[in-house]
């Protein structure tokens, strides 16, 4: 979504234009697909694309308005959307989060969560392993008890739970 972040610290104008372009593209997709489905009056009432067609049209119009306004406002270019430092902070969290959700499918919810919490504490909180291990394992065990035992909501499990016979 963040169209302008390939530059180190993006200006608000660049991001504003980038996001508006993405929304415009999204609106165009909606319009085109609705048109394909039929956006007019059928034999027995409005065709399936009737409502989404106008929704898509409004997306295009409003994003175009945002685009034009950002384009014609050079003062936004001076404004920083996100500083290099802030972006670093966000990526430090976002990248592990993406890794975490993709690990869930292989390791199961509980093991992946333990690793994720431990990483956070170790990397961002600078905690020693003596604190990190009990907290991260404890939280996951607590979640296991709450969801599997109390609410009987099964969450995806991985090799560790299989080995322990908890499936």
């Amino acid at each position: 979504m963040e169209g302008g972040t390939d530059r180190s610290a993006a200006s608000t104008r660049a991001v504003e234009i980038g996001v508006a372009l993405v929304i415009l593209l999204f609106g165009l997709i909606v319009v085109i697909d609705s048109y394909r489905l039929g956006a007019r009056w059928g034999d027995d009432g409005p065709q399936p694309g009737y409502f989404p067609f106008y929704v898509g049209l409004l997306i295009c119009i409003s994003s175009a308005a945002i685009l034009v306004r950002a384009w014609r406002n050079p003062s936004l270019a001076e404004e920083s959307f996100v500083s290099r430092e802030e972006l670093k902070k966000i990526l430090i969290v976002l990248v592990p989060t993406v890794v975490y959700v993709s690990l869930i499918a292989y390791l199961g919810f509980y093991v992946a969560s333990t690793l994720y919490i431990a990483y956070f504490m170790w990397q961002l909180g600078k905690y020693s392993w003596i604190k990190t291990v009990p907290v991260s394992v404890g939280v996951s065990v607590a979640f296991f008890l709450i969801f599997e035992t109390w609410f009987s909501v099964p969450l995806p499990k991985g090799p560790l739970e299989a080995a322990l016979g908890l499936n």
Partner: protein
Amino acid sequence: MEEINALMQGFGVALSPFNLLLMFVGVILGIIIGVLPGLGGANGVAILLPLTFSMAQQPGGTTSAIILLSCIYWGALFGGAITSILFNIPGEPWSVATTFDGHPLAQRGRAGSALTAAFTSSFFGALIAVVMITFLSPVVAGFALKFGPPEFFSVYLLTFCAFVGMSGGNAAKTVASMMIGFALAAVGLDSVTGTLRLTFGFTSLLKGFDFLIAVIGLFGIGEILETLEEGLAFKGASAKINMKVVLETWKELPRYWATSLRSAAVGCFMGIVPGGATPASFMSYGLARRLSKDGKDFGNGVVEGVVAPETAAHAAGTSALLPMITLGVPGSPTAAVLLGGLLIWGLQPGPLLFVEKPDFVWGLIASMYLGNIAGLIVVLTCVPLFAAILRIPFSIIAPVIIVICAIGAYTVHNSMFDVYLMVIFGVVGYAFKKLGYPLAPMVLALVLGDRAEENFRNAIKGSQGDLTVFFSNGLVGSLTGLALILLFWPMLRGLWRAVLGKR
């Protein structure tokens, strides 16, 4: 006096030991949710909603489930005041005005008075709103029984136009955000014709986008990312509160009766309009500053400056449920999630609910009285405990919150795809928030999209494609007319000012 009888029956439902337990559980969970960064009323309820699926299937279970979830909402409203006053961090947008006087009071060592005043006036505001709901909702529902598809669509139109006209921000961004919500709601199987829309051959899109995933991502992950950017440390005033402070503050509060009543009225009225809680809190703060004797001291820490926004915000948050149960139109994002819950449990929110499920409706209304009493008791006695939550280092609480969000997203449909989607919505939420795109209209459109479209289709089917059906009688015509006035409100006001300015 029919309402009183119905309400008494409602109390009979709500006062069962199990429901009372759920009330306290809900309120405590709600306060925790309101205090934690990244979790608010809307996504807190969204995360816990899947856990009520099995509860709702038992007889009388839907009432218990709504009691639990609505009490989470009340708790979150109370919790917002704690962070605003002690930490100067508004947990919700409508708590912003509470920080103006609440935090200075806390810095001067009067945190106890500020908190007591905030909780008591929240309670008062909610109480006024619940009384209004008790007597007004049967009337509105009875009136709405006459509604057909054109009327319902024009009510939806009114809701969405109010967002555009009243939000005060960039109208194009409000429209864009709302229409993205509508477009996402249209993805998947079209229930009328059975056609697949906007799926592009991806099987994971067949079910469409669930609003719960969007809420968890947009509000949960998005907010965590935003908090991170601002830094990780919370510095707060200590929360000492004891019976003496409470009683002293209570002695002081009756002096502000005029402010309380005025703020409650503003809140009740604005709460019915979608997105009304935030403007209501600012409006009543502004009114109180202008009309109060000590108006010039506002901002330096006066109790009255806490009373005004808190009363209004809580009244508005509560009265947001009035259009939800009577018309099926939620007045706030959290009310939208609750409405989504009703749909999932197989209830049709709207006027028929009062006829078909009186137990449910009156049980809910009775639980609003009891839940707010429970909330007041819990917050007054346990503030230090809740404040301690914010002293847990962010590097522990942030990943735990993200894990909770992931679990919440997964449990909606037991699908990993939803968890990936949640992360994407989180990034979108972060970018949108920073660029000033409002998120509430998107969520509301996502929840109401299918119903709005269905009513629109049925309405124009009845009229053979003639759009004048939305002006065909006095009722629908005035609803549509009002919607158009609200839509163009900023322009009309600008015009009015231009005329006045020129003389």
